[in-house]
């Protein structure tokens, strides 16, 4: 039962990254694709009706994590206190940048909103990457299962690490590059003409950086935490994830060359699924490794809720997720197609 919930949480977080990842990515490439205020308005319009729903996947994942693994939630949220609070502030700023831009017709207001949106998106990508880096590297859990990480110590991977060290910074950069491509692919899909060309070009250039960063992060991960290979050695099924990563990378290049925006976008989604799924597979059944004493590590077994609650939860979760999939299919269907300045619909 714990394993099922581990998979559910991993799945929901992956969906969050794939969906909100293109909103964040759109923010990262905001200035590179949108050269004029009208073009930047189009970028906002491309994510406008969907970004809030996408962000809800984070909130819902948080709720499900709290429900299924309360001990993990308590430890990790208090231990990652400062970066999480900063993520909250960035989420607030991003929302303001996106949602309030069109309420006031004033070029200065638009300039301010554009900057806030893009700035918050870039930092969010790095923060989320670094967060995953922290979980893979391990945190200084004590015997009671709590820890507190300062933002940085000496940037080395030690028993007393900070949120940022050389490894987690690499993870942050991987996330930044990956979401840059994902966002550029989304904007390419939603726009025409020059913006489309620019978005395609950015995705094409960033692809080389992504290949390099993927290799670097793999080597770094294995050197920081060799145990990540254990699950792969014992269970061949895990290789589906590295395979997804590779096919995602290949797909991005292949479909970009063919000018197929839809499949390019799907390829970057596949890449993200492969990376996150691979990380989850490598960690299992640990959910938060201890850098202090391996016995202090939190696993799905010592951090989960009681079994009755988990069983009941499975019933309503199945109903809830089916409804959510239906809503989102309807939402994306309604707003499918290219965006243009002419059509109404706000933004």
């Amino acid at each position, binding site marked *: 039962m714990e394993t099922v919930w581990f998979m559910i949480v991993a799945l929901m977080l992956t969906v969050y990254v794939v969906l909100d990842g293109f909103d964040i990515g759109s923010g990262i490439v905001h200035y590179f694709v949108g050269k004029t205020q009208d073009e930047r308005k189009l970028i906002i319009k491309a994510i406008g009706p969907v970004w809030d729903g996408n962000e809800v996947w984070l909130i819902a994942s948080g709720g499900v994590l709290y429900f299924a693994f309360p001990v993990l939630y308590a430890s990790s949220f208090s231990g990652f206190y400062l970066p999480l*609070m900063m993520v909250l502030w960035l989420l607030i700023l991003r929302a303001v940048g996106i949602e309030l831009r069109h309420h006031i017709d004033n070029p200065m207001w638009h300039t301010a909103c554009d900057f806030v949106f893009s700035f918050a998106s870039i930092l969010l990508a790095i923060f989320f990457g670094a967060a995953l880096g922290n979980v893979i590297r391990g945190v200084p859990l004590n015997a009671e299962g709590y820890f507190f990480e300062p933002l940085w110590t000496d940037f080395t991977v030690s028993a007393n690490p900070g949120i940022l060290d050389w490894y987690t910074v690499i993870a942050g950069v991987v996330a930044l590059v990956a979401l840059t491509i994902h966002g550029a692919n989304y904007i390419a899909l939603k726009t025409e003409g020059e913006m489309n060309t620019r978005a395609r070009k950015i995705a094409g250039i960033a692809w080389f950086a992504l290949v390099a960063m993927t290799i670097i992060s793999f080597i770094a991960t294995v050197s920081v935490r060799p145990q990540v290979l254990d699950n792969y050695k014992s269970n061949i099924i895990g290789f589906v994830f590295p395979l997804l990563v590779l096919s995602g990378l290949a797909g991005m290049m292949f479909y970009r060359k063919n000018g197929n925006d839809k499949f390019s976008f799907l390829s970057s989604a596949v890449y993200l699924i492969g990376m996150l799924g691979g990380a989850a597979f490598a960690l299992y059944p640990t959910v938060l490794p201890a850098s202090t004493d391996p016995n202090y590590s939190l696993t799905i077994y010592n951090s989960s809720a009681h079994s009755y609650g988990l069983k009941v939860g499975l019933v309503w979760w199945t109903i809830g997720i089916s409804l959510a999939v239906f809503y989102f299919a309807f939402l994306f269907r309604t707003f499918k197609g290219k965006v243009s300045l002419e059509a109404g619909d706000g933004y």
Partner: protein
Amino acid sequence: MNDALTIDRLQFAFTITYHYLFPQLTMGLAPLIVIFKALAIWKKDERYNHAARFWAKVFGISFLFGVVTGIPMEFQFGTNWAKFSRFAGSVIGQTLAMEGMFAFFLESAFLGLFLFGERRLGQRLHFLSAFLVFLGSWLSAYFIIATNAWMQHPIGYAVAADGSVYLTSFSALLFNPWAIVQYMHNMGGALVTGSFAVAALGAFYVLSKKQIDYGKMFLKTGIIAACIASIWMIFPSGDMQGQMVAKHQPVTLAAMEGLFKTEQSASLVLIGQPNIQEQKLDNPIKIPGMLSFLTHKRWNAEVKGLDAFPKDQHPDNIALLYYSYHIMVGLGTIFIAIMVLSAFLLWRGKLAKTNWLLWIVMLSFPLPFIANTAGWMTAEIGRQPWLVYGLMRTSEGISPTVSAGNGLFTLIGFMGMYTVLSLLFILLMWREIEHGPAFLSKQKSNDHHGTTPSDELKPADAN
């Protein structure tokens, strides 16, 4: 002031108080928007559609502020209240996760459709999305209130070997009698806020002689809804909530009412200042026997005072609890007076000409926010010194590793961030009010929402 417990409590109190200003407005407006939308389709009157779109814009801005200030609440369960989460997460995680799965997905997906999809969806589906946004926001409230109700009146749980609690009855958690009563009372409160806002804006338009048609429409809808909701707040929902507190938290009731000594035929205090040192009430004005009647439906019944309970069970801020409760009840009574009178004049067709009352209706729009806040303060300060009533003290629930210094850093950060948000909110609301529904009706018929390219060519305040 420098200990982590105080900072954690202050941060939660500040962020939740600020957050709840927005949901009470959106939850109150949502059913009214559905009504406007329904009237537009039923009466085939485009003016109701403009009204619906106008309030949808107000709703959309408030909803955004509610969402961004709401995420910190979920996070703080883990960041600042880690021991509480570890203790109670197996139980309240259920309702919190269900809120995300059933309410947030629903309202966020359909809000996008409702705000930006009218042209693509057509009128009937647009009405449906308005309804689903309403449903989502009201469902969301139920799950949160069920969570809070479990903290007020924990049932359906057992204690595990490690001292934490776990769920034994899902239905007990979900259908906690406290939750049902609190929900009825709370949603009435939200409707008071929403309907007062609609009525107040109507009064503003009529008094300022701008968009008088819409002013009258808002007055009518707002006052009818506010009249019903205000009465509902005292009876039956307020009375039921009082019974619930009397039954399960008698010490809280004593502190709320300022009843220091146990009394036969206890009187109801209208005004007076709690004197904690001497355990008495200064300058009281009372109605004899009334408290006994309200609590036990008998004039001479005994009501237990604070002296009947050990000191370590008393709420830790009796004076603030007493004032919060009295402000809520006092304002609630004033609401009934204003709205019953307004409804009467509306029925006689004289309201739009009774300027002094329109002024009162217009200026009263902040009062429901205060009353709702005071009500929640009564519930939460009344629960002290417990975090989970009778099971876990507030002092035992905080994160062991988050220092006061780090807590203060983020508290100050939130204060700064929310100051900026407040300024933006006021600015945006003022613009919407200035534009009003008439502005929307001037736009091209296929461009129902938001800024359109054609507006950008006009100066910002074209009207």
